[in-house]
């Protein structure tokens, strides 16, 4: 193959972690911590460097870089061209953003994880999974066709499963992992059906060709793109933990904290957003679905925000917050503001990773205490972590100047006059921002202010690696806004520009949007004042029914349990012995009965035997009579 240098770099980019994965799995526990850490982090660093190299190669003149590795398989139907499914990578503005996030944040989280998980006896296995995850994620975002994308898609799902259940000896973790995998699998199935439909309609899987063909064949509002987009949305919803498949994400917090940061905040859960952005060509042909996306996003962001208000576990607050933020991204995509959505994806990756990792550091210092009501007063005791966490929360609340501000404002600004969104959704977004700041404040007050409520001595980690990665993330979160223009530019080639409706935008729109988080802070300052105080009595966690309802994910779990899980298990149990088998064995039983009956006719009595002969003869003679007479008659 005569590839140019950038192409070679691109081709190799996802495979460094793969090599590391194989080595780590192959040698297992025989590797020392140093070796394992160097291997995994080093391979990540290679990928990250490669990413920046190839991204720098992109320019306005050549906005796309592709590399073909090998032909995976060919799908040939008679009468049409065969569709070649290749293992090929495709790099454009969108995937560039994604790989920089994945490999960049991935590298930082790997560094953190190497320090964080140092004491774990299965350290190598952990790092191996993390590496494998990065491989799958990179393939997902670089895939030039939907089948390869699906490979990455399922791959990240598997890694997520493995990492959630990393501490596999706990029953709860195992169940959480299973739930995550199966729930996302439901979405994946929808996506797979979407793929079948796409292929039937367009005979293609290559993303660019699909978009082109779709624009040629269909007009806006056709049935086919509607169904396809809807099914793809199903996949996205599953992966990105949006309604109605959001229930797995809070439970997924059972995994180690770096996992939550990497997979369940920064990268994997945003794959759904990436998918919709990537398939914008199809989605734009189905405005109704765009509308659904927007509404789904809005609903999720509100519900998740409400649920976040009621959590007592620091990671679960963050998990709901992630759902809510992805809701924003979805909302943005649905409104046609693709660039803004992707930009928010990036900034969210920065600050949410920061939040999770800091939370991890705190949890580590607190001897794996995750309950907010058992924290408090960390402001004085862990000032470094508090500062970092505060930075993260500021970004989350989108206070002006932070990276979150730029991205979220960009989204909100486009909602009002969007084709597929509108003022209603704008209000939702604003209310969501309000909720965000309220639960952020609540979290901050509970964890960092007030009095100490934990028993053990604090054990803050002194690892330099840990701090290094946290600081890097904090810096990124703060200054993330400066990438706005670069990203806008690089994405402009990917997404078509959509003419907004000519609605009169009221002049107060922007000011309200900026003011919303502050209102939230003010509100919580007073409403949660007892969380700031020193009275321990105020911290009793005795939730009302409503709070409990919210804490348990607004009853979705209960609902699905009742509607799907229970009936399935019940059916399974009911039919454990296989109905069909029983029907067939019924025959066997029946033959057995016949045997018994016939056997009892073998009485051994000679006279009965003779009588039986006579009886049979009589019967036969009678039938003969009937037959011959009826023949005569006819």
């Amino acid at each position, binding site marked *: 193959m005569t590839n140019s240098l950038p192409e070679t770099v691109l081709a190799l980019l996802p495979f460094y972690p793969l090599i590391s994965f194989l080595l780590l*799995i192959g040698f*297992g526990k025989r590797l020392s911590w140093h070796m394992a850490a160097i291997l995994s982090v080093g391979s990540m660093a290679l990928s990250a460097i490669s990413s920046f190299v190839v991204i720098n190669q992109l320019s306005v003149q050549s906005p796309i870089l592709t590399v073909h590795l*090998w*032909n*995976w*398989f*060919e*799908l*040939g*139907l*008679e009468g049409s061209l065969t569709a070649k499914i290749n*293992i090929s990578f495709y790099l454009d503005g969108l995937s560039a953003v994604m790989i920089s996030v994945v490999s960049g944040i991935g590298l930082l989280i790997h560094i953190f994880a190497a320090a964080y998980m140092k004491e774990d006896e299965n350290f190598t*296995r952990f790092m191996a999974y993390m590496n494998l995850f990065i491989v799958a994620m990179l393939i997902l975002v670089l895939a030039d066709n939907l*089948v390869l994308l*699906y*490979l990455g*898609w*399922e*791959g990240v799902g*598997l890694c997520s*499963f*493995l990492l959630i*259940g990393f501490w*596999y*000896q706990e*029953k709860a973790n*195992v169940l959480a*992992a*299973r739930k995550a*995998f*199966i729930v996302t*699998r*439901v979405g*994946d*199935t929808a996506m*797979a*059906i979407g*793929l*079948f*439909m796409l*292929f*039937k309609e367009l005979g293609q899987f290559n993303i660019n060709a699909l978009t082109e063909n779709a624009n040629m064949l269909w007009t806006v509002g056709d049935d086919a793109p509607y169904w396809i987009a809807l099914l793809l949305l199903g996949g996205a919803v599953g992966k990105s933990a949006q309604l109605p498949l959001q229930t797995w994400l809070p439970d997924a917090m059972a995994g180690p904290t770096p996992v939550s940061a990497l997979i369940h905040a920064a990268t994997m859960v945003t794959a759904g957003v990436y998918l919709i952005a990537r398939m914008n060509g199809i989605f734009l042909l189905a405005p109704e679905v765009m509308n659904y996306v927007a509404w789904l996003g809005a609903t999720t962001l509100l519900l998740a925000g409400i649920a976040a208000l009621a959590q007592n576990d620091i990671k679960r607050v963050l998990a709901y917050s992630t759902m809510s933020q992805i809701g924003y991204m979805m909302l943005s995509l649905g409104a046609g503001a693709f660039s803004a959505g992707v930009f928010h994806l990036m900034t969210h990756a920065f600050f949410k990773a920061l939040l999770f990792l800091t939370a991890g550091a705190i949890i580590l210092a607190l001897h794996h205490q995750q309950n907010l009501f058992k924290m408090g007063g960390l402001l004085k005791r862990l000032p470094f972590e508090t500062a970092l966490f505060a930075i993260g929360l500021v970004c989350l609340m989108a206070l002006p100047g932070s990276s979150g501000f730029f991205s979220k404002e960009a989204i909100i600004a486009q909602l009002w006059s969007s084709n597929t969104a509108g003022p209603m959704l704008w209000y939702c977004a604003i209310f969501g921002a309000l909720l965000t700041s309220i639960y952020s404040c609540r979290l901050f007050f509970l964890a960092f202010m007030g009095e100490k409520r934990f028993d053990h001595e604090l054990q803050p980690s002194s690892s330099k690696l840990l701090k290094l990665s946290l600081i890097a993330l904090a810096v990124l979160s703060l200054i993330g806004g400066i990438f706005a223009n670069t990203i806008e530019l690089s994405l402009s080639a990917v997404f078509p520009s959509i003419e907004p409706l000519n609605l009169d935008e009221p002049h107060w729109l922007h000011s309200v949007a900026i003011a919303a988080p502050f209102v939230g802070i003010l509100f919580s300052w007073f409403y949660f004042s007892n969380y700031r105080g020193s009275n321990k009595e105020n911290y009793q966690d005795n939730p009302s029914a409503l709070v409990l309802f919210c804490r348990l994910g607004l009853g979705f779990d209960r609902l699905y349990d009742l509607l799907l899980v229970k009936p*399935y298990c019940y*059916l*399974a*149990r009911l*039919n*454990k012995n*296989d109905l*069909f*088998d029983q*029907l*067939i*064995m019924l025959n066997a039983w029946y033959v057995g009965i016949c045997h018994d009956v016939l056997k009892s006719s073998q009485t051994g009595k000679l006279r009965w035997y003779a009588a039986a002969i006579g009886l049979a003869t009589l019967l036969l003679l009678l039938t003969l009579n009937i037959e011959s007479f009826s023949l005569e008659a006819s």
Partner: protein
Amino acid sequence: MSITLVMSSLFFGGALAWYIEGVKAQSARWIALLTVIIVGFYFVISITTAGLDFSSLQTLVRLSWISSFNIEYALAVDYLSLVLVLLTLFLAVICVLVSWQEIQTKTGFYYFNLLAAIAGIIGVFTAVDMFLFFFFWEVMLLPMTALIAIWGHENRHFAAIKFFIFTQVSSLLMLVAIIAMATIHFQQRGQVSFFYQDWLTLNLPLSTSLYLMLGFFIAFAVKLPSVPVHSWLPDAHTQAPTAGSVLLAGVLLKTGAYGLIRFVLHLFPQASMEFAPIAATLGVVSILYGAKMAFAQQDFKRLVAYSSISHMGFVMLALFSFNAIAYQGAVLTLVAHGLSSAALFALAGMVYSRIHSRDLGHMGGFWQTAPRMGGFALAFAAAAFGLPGLANFVAEFFSLVGAYQRFPLLTILAAFGLVGSAIYGMVLFQSAFQGKEANRGESSKVDDLSKRELLVFSSLLALLILIGFYPNIVLMFFQDTGQTLVLTNTAGGQ
């Protein structure tokens, strides 16, 4: 090349193993292993040097056998049979290796049965005289039943009888259909013939061919197996010794699919077209029902057995969708499922040899002491639920994409099998390898894989990954066949 030589050397190798055991204990397995490997190499070398174009059936041998019925000893191969024979020979090695320690009593006779079953299966894949085909079809049952009945688990006699009766009754229907075909040949051509290629040229009225097709279809559906005639499989699998299960799942089920392809679809194209909606529905029902039943099981092997039913449903659905993609998918499913289910059953055997139980409730937390085994188990479970990158994904993808072209609604339903398979795959993997270590009393420590077991698993996994990322090594043989199949069918349908 000589298939006859392959079969007879397998048979006599087995007989030698049986004999040798009396002379020198523990040597039977070596003889068996050597036989299988040598035969495998011979087969590979002879097909590569044969210089024949296997894209259509190449008759290798044709001798008169029972002249009063014009029955011949006729063997022929094309790529389909070649691939399946290769799979059989490969799994034969696996079978010998997994039996290495497991079989401690009557080893000589065991290996004789094993090799005889393999020889019979190869016969099924290559016979083109229908009487001969039927002959092998039944003959392969005998050693298989013996494997179950002699070296099986606690309920082995029941399982073996059930297995035998299901197949026997259904195959008698096929025998009637075979006789009918021969008679029709007599009526049309003035001579009885059991030769497959002669039959292809027959001109059947649709109503007759529907009945005849059903005769074949039922026999193959039982073997495949498809709901509602599947219920021999869980019992047979559960009770069989490991190698028996491997052989059953790996290749014996494939004979059903092979029969569907070679006989049902090719001999009765028009009737199959007519019947396709029902068959495809059966396929979908198998997929969903198998997945659901697999989830309900507590027995490791039973679970895998039901998963096989589910997977074979994909084959049925794909075959009756009549297009090239689905056809390739079906063939690929045969190979992929052959490898992955063989691996899962081998795993079950290894677990059983360690804890002497197949009950998932008695398992748990194996990962602690047997991480390698856990890794492989995960990989094979992932193969079972169709993780991309492994062979099964490509196979299912082809099947479903192809099937969607013809039966969109059924395919959508079938796709929910993906969720079902994820559920049972998770249950299988997690309850055995994750969670707390179950309290198993005296022997709670589960050893990791031995070198031999590692060899078995890594070779299977390597093939699964290879086909998963480069399915063309199998598919390249079937580009044309798929087309011709579709062409004959569309021609027949008009």
